[in-house]
Every structure is written in C-alpha cells, then in structure tokens.
C-alpha cells in the first residue's frame, strides 16, 4: 500500500538517506529500528514531504500514486497520518480543540470526538486542559488521537514510547495493536526494541541512512545476530 523505493534525502548538502526502500501493507505493523541519528525521523519526514529534508532521488508511492511532489496536507488527505517524534501538540489548544480542529464536532463518520474519547478515556477527563498541562502518557495519547481524526489508513509513528513509563508503553501498545486489528498499516519507528518486537510483524534495521536488514519478527527472533550487530543489544 505504501511503498518507498530507493530514497535519497538531503539536509542541504548532508546526504542523510542513502537509498531507503521499504513498504507497509494494510493490517500490518512494520518497525523501523536504528540507533540515534541513523535516519529514522528523516525517513518519516521524507514520506510526509515536510520542508526538510529534500528528497532528491527515489519514489514514494501510495496505492500506486506518486507522493513525492504533493504537499504535506495533500499527503495527509490521502489518509496518511503522522504521530511525530516529541508529540508536537499545539500549546494553545485544548485537548478537545486538537480533535475538533481537524473534524467538526458534528461529524458522524470515522473517528469522531466521541469515539476518540471512548478509546482514550483519560483524554475525555482532561478535555479542557491544554497540551502542556497533560502528563507524558496523556500527551502521547492525544498525539495518536489527533492523528486518527483524519481517519488514516496508514499511521507513521515516530518513537511513540519515548519517555513513557512502562505502564503507559503497555497501554500504547494495546492501542497500536488495536489499530492494526482494524486494518491500518503502521510504520513504527522505535529505539525501544522490546516495544517494537512486541508489536511488529516485520522489521527493518537502518544504519546511517541505509536499510541494512529486513525480515519478519520470527526470523529476527530465531537469528538475533543482526539485532546485535546494528542495535548493539545482547
């Protein structure tokens, strides 16, 4: 469904992605793992075509359509949602406003406010709070709920477990697995190997802008040498 083919991305002259290829199908969780600064966020930003980096080579296709030259909002309109690294909530919006700004409160289809509050009861309790008054876990839940309001078919999640307490990580894993159950394709960027292994169907390992390994979770678990080599885990 989402296919990335031979992507080369640059920040100015810095050649950061050097031929990244991967794909995500409906109803699967694909993990993209790698150490700090290896190009995970750059991959996600390239897919959304955000202002930096610049994609100079390679193609991003979604349901057969080339996305490279579309603006970020047009890409989001095609039902590709972003849960960015660091949450990036809107500091001056309340919880409710984060959701209603994308879809009128009167909307009946897909993800509605009521459904979002159903899925994330903590957010319902805090609906009049602003983003900066929420706990880390609540913030991440809101970042996910905001992404869902565009009724995505694919969700790009950039280190959603970063900085969360273990119980929150578990809750989040539950949410992500449930989304897969509804047929969404999820590209999950993680440094938290255990969270990724718990969820992912397939795994890509990235090192200095190159995909250095690709396999199903079962394969990686049977032969963890790649994990040891590229992530330094034992």
């Amino acid at each position: 469904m989402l296919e990335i083919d031979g992507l080369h991305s640059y920040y100015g002259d810095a050649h950061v992605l050097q031929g990244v290829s991967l794909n995500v199908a409906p109803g699967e969780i694909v993990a993209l793992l790698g150490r700090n600064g290896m190009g995970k966020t750059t991959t996600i930003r390239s897919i959304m075509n955000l202002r930096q980096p610049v994609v100079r080579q390679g193609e991003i296709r979604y349901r057969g359509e080339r996305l490279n030259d579309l603006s970020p909002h047009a890409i989001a309109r095609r039902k590709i949602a972003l849960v960015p690294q660091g949450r990036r909530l809107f500091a001056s919006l309340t919880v409710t406003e984060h959701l209603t700004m994308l879809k009128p409160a009167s909307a009946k289809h897909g993800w509605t406010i009521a459904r979002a509050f159903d899925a994330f009861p903590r957010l319902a309790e805090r609906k009049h709070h602003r983003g900066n008054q929420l706990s880390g876990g609540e913030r991440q839940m809101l970042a996910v709920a905001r992404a869902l309001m565009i009724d995505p078919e694919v969700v790009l999640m950039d280190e959603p477990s970063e900085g969360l307490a273990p119980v929150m990580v578990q809750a989040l894993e539950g949410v992500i697995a449930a989304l897969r159950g509804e047929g969404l394709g999820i590209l999950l960027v993680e440094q938290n190997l255990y969270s990724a292994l718990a969820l992912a169907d397939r795994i890509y390992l990235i090192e200095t802008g190159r995909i250095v390994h690709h396999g199903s979770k079962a394969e990686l678990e049977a032969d963890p040498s790649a994990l040891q080599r590229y992530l330094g885990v034992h």
Partner: protein
Amino acid sequence: MLAFQIMNGLTFAALLFVVASGFTLIFGLLRIVNLAHGALYLFGGYIGFTISKLTGSFLIGGIGAMLCVAIMGLLLDQGLLRFVRGFELRQVMLTLGVAFVLNDLALVMWGGDTFTVATPEWLQGAVVIGSLFYPKFRIFVLVVGILVFISLWLLINKTRLGALIRAGVDDLEMVEACGIDIRRVFLVTFMLGSALAGLGGMLGGTFLALYPSADAEILVFSLAVVIIGGRGSLVGAAIGSLLIGLLNTFGQVWFPQLAYFVIFGPMAVLLAFRPLGLFGKAA
C-alpha cells in the same frame, strides 16, 4: 481636563487596536511583518471617504472600505506574497515596496490634500459623561474598538477557524501534516487583517484626517503596539494599544517636543526585559 485627555488616549488606543489587531494577526500566523499595512489603512480611509461621499452613507462607506481593502489583501497575498513564502526578508522588502507603490497610487488618485470623512449626523455632537462633554464620534470609535476586540477574541478562541489559526501560530508544519491546507487559512487571515486596516482607515479618516503620510504614522504606531504586546497576541495588542494610546496623548500634552520619545523610550525599556513583548512566545 484630565478626564478629557484620558478619553482622548482611550479613543486613540481603540483606533490603534483596530489597526494593530489586523497587523498582529498577520504577523502571528503568516510571520509576515506587513509594512504595507499602513498603506492599506490609508486606502481604507480614502475609499471610505469616496464611497460615503458618493452614497451619502457612512455605514456603506465603512463596509465598502473593509471589503475593498480585504480584496487588496487578497491580491497582495495571492499575487505577490505567495511567491516568497518562508523567506522573511524578501517578504518584508516586498511589503515595503508595495507600501511605496500604494502610497504613490493614493497620491495620484486622491491628490495631496488633507481629507476628513464626514461624520454622519447620528454621530455628531457630544455625549455628557458626568461633567465632561465628549464628542460622540470618538465614543463610537471606542465602542467599535471594544466590539472588534470581543469579536476577534470569540473568533480566535471559540471557533474552528480560530483553533486553526492558533495551531498555526504554534506549529505550522504540524498543522499541514494534519491535512489542513494552511494557505487557505493564511488567505482568510490576511484578508481579515486587511479589512481591519480598512476599518481603521475609515475611523481614523473621520476623527483624525487623511493625508499622504498618514500611512507611515499609523504603521509606526502599529509596529510599536505589536512589539510591546508580542507577536500574534490579541490581548497583547489590546494592552499595547492602551499603553501607546495613553502615552502618546499625554506625551503630546506634557512633553510636546518629546512625543515620540515618550512612546519609544518605555518600549525600549520593556524590550530589554521582555524581548518578545508582553505576551510574545518564541517562534
């Protein structure tokens, strides 16, 4: 006498607020320091003057001024600024160029004489407040200023468009990544901000006057208001307007030779302690 001066300060503040609120709205969301804002004000005044003279209606003049200047804003945004999005210096230079062109254009169209928009009959005369006789029209300006504040506050804090504008001020890229075509929000905001300049021109053209350099004067005041209040802050613009309006009025009365210093001196001191203004947030 003191009460009279305070009222003068407040009414001037109201006019400033109408103009500067549009300025700060555009500055906050689009990150454009629109140096043509003063020229839009001047055009609002001239257009309002002409329309109200032709139709004999102050109200139609005011509405016409707002509409025409909103359309000028549309042309400016879609015709020019669109091509320099994201390049701050180019935007500023472009709006400065537009300001000069518009100023010359106004000179060609209306000449160099000083005009005043005729005060409609229902706003002539004075209101008695206690022992004070105060011009009705200036009270009207004060009321309009308050109404503009309330409407903008409701728009920004209680509507979906307002939530989009606030989100855009916080994090433009993220708004786009959520599927919002921010350019449309930009355009609406730019037109609204321009319309406010037009309304300001109509009001200022009635209780001050219209002449070829009035645009630069109001621009300098608006800049000061927004710098004091902080980029994009409505409440900041209101407080900045009050401060500048009162300082300007009392400065002229007490230290006529130092009128500008009375405004910009305190502004400099404030910026030394709060570089982003009273309500400014880092971009």
